[in-house]
């Protein structure tokens, strides 16, 4: 089976400091993979590098997304190709209305696909329907992007953006951290709603509990810039029970 996303020998550094030291990872179409691992292992860096953040220098390896050389693409071109990164710490945009932000983003992607842009009325209709499905308060559209949002609201806003932009590949960077159980369910539902043969996701998490709602096909353990172990959903349960030390010792 051809992979939707294929990462091979990927190395990246920030300044002189190597963070990713050779990642090999293949995510087939339709699969959800989880990335777990201790703090500082390079999980967030992997998400940023995939999305094209310029602070990280890719020093080697390849990333192929549906046959395209993704490392050669600008961040917005990657987004247009269907990549979505749910940020661990979503950025605040003072003065920028959430509805306007979402419509600008959606229309940029629609334009890239040669589709007609949505006007404000069409967009609001679409957004309200999605929000209802995700049990979100419509007020969120009127507020400025992430400004004054609680931690949970910010994460839910990321899920809303994902629902509206309908990516083919989503990277969720600890979207579950700091969420209560209801919010966790919204995140999981947001991802589950997109599930299908043409949607894949990489879910970065510390906890088993998100994976209870969002059963992954594969679980990978990232430590010190490398994937040191991969397995089925039971690996997450094992990590939850025994911690990372056993796996780390094994790999050493």
């Amino acid at each position, binding site marked *: 089976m051809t992979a939707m996303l294929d990462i091979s020998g990927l190395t990246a550094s920030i300044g002189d400091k190597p963070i990713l030291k050779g990642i090999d990872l293949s995510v087939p179409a339709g699969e959800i993979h989880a990335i777990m691992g201790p703090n500082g292992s390079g999980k967030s860096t992997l998400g940023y590098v995939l*999305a*094209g*953040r*310029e*602070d990280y220098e890719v020093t080697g390896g390849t990333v192929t997304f549906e046959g395209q050389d993704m490392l050669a693409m*600008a*961040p*917005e071109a*990657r*987004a*247009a190709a269907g990549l*979505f*990164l749910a*940020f661990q710490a*979503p*950025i605040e*945009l*003072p*003065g*920028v*209305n959430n509805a*306007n*932000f979402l419509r*600008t*983003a*959606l*229309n*940029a*992607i629609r*334009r*890239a696909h040669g589709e007609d*842009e949505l006007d404000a009325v069409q967009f609001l209709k679409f957004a309200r329907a999605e929000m209802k499905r995700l049990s979100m308060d419509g007020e969120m559209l009127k507020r*400025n992007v992430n400004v004054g949002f609680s931690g949970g609201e910010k994460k839910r806003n990321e899920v809303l*953006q994902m629902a509206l*932009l309908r990516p083919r590949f989503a990277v969720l960077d600890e979207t579950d951290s700091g969420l209560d159980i209801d919010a966790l369910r919204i995140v999981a539902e947001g991802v589950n709603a997109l599930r299908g043969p043409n949607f894949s996701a990489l879910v970065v998490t510390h906890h088993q509990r998100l994976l209870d709602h969002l059963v992954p096909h594969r679980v990978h353990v990232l430590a010190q810039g490398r994937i040191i172990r991969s397995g089925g959903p039971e690996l997450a349960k094992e990590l939850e029970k025994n911690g990372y030390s056993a796996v780390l010792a094994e790999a050493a």
Partner: protein
Amino acid sequence: MSAVNETLDTVRSVTESGYKWGFETNIEMDVAPKGLTPDTIRMISARKEEPSWMLDWRLRAFEAWLKMEEPHWARVDHPRIDYQDIHYYAAPKKKDGPKSLDEVDPELLAMYEKLGIPLKERAILAGVEGADEAPQRQIAVDAVFDSVSVATTFRESLAKVGVIFCPISEAIREHPDLVKQYIGSVVPVADNYFAALNSAVFTDGSFVFIPKGVRCPMELSTYFRINTKNTGQFERTLIIAEAGSHVSYLEGCTAPQRDENQLHAAVVELVAMEDASIKYSTVQNWYPGDANGKGGIYNFVTKRGACLGDRSKISWTQVETGSAITWKYPSCVLHGVDSVGEFYSVAVTTNHQQADTGTKMIHIGKGSRSTIISKGISAGQSNNTYRGLVKIMPSASGARNFTQCDSLLIGENCGAHTVPYIESRNPSAKVEHEATTSKIDEDKLFYCRQRGMSEEDAVNLIVNGFCKEVLKELPMEFAVEAQKLLAVSLEGSVG
């Protein structure tokens, strides 16, 4: 055409030609010799066929100016200006003077087109039948082409309701009593160095008189251009709103590209009587100089409004993107009980531009209120200063002011400065000041780009969000133009 495509077109046209509005119109000019002497002033006054009181007033201003020093307290820096190396008068050569708009020089009409004067107005200028219908959408244009006002539209429909809207030189001849009563009443001849200079040599500008109880049936609009090499432009505008009247006045400017610095020192005076309101909107886009800081307009402007009557209101809205140097503080003197002053400003500086701009709100009347919303955007190596004064006099019991000063920085090498002065001499007054500084940084841009937006889309989104409290104060057509102008001004400022 979608707004986005339109913006792209605008951006393209600007990047290709450097400065879109940098063209020169070839109309024969009648230029005074360089230099400023009483004879120059006599020549200007004679060309304008002014009464002797006007000439005397100008000469008094000149006497005062000679004794004054050029001010240097603003946070701007420029080479010494040689006031004897400037032409103080330039007029398109009169052939026989157009009897109607049909006779207006076609090159001038073509120029309006290049300036992007809205189709509606061009249609009216071109005399298209029925173009002056739908009164609520009408805009009247008093075009100041260099120093002489060439075309004035809508005169008749304005005259029906008693509104006078004409070049000030004409008002001096036709309505001398009104001019004599009010000129210099808000900005006295010796108010400051540049106002004194303007009073001595002003060549044209607009005069507006709205009679008692009249709501001006259309927006009044002036497009300025500076068009002759080395010609300082000294406009003088006077707007009088009698009791219970309302008027909205728009001013927009562009200028041809030049290497030499051009001095511009305008004076605008507004007078609002009881229950009258004046809304004065400006979009300023004079040539800012090139990317290395060479050339560009020096814009030293004195704008002041007097709320003389009770419950009168004066509102200034400005979007300032042009000029190499901006020195401008549109102010309100709130004499009337419960009178209201407002100042909404967006000032953008890029490359090597310098802006020192703000407002003064002088509270004299009981219960007078003022609002100041200032948005400064700095990019490149530019410096952007907000300088404002809120002064509460002992008589102004219960006066209130709210000031919000926000700065947005783009890049690492620009500066934003906020210099608020607050003087309260009445303990019952309430003065609030809020200030924020934010930055368009890599985090924000990356977040937007990850969602599919280009860097330019992202900057526009953030900038328009930052400015929206001010942009919403502009009349609709102007707000759209201003948004485009912001996009164009900041193009290429990131990355």
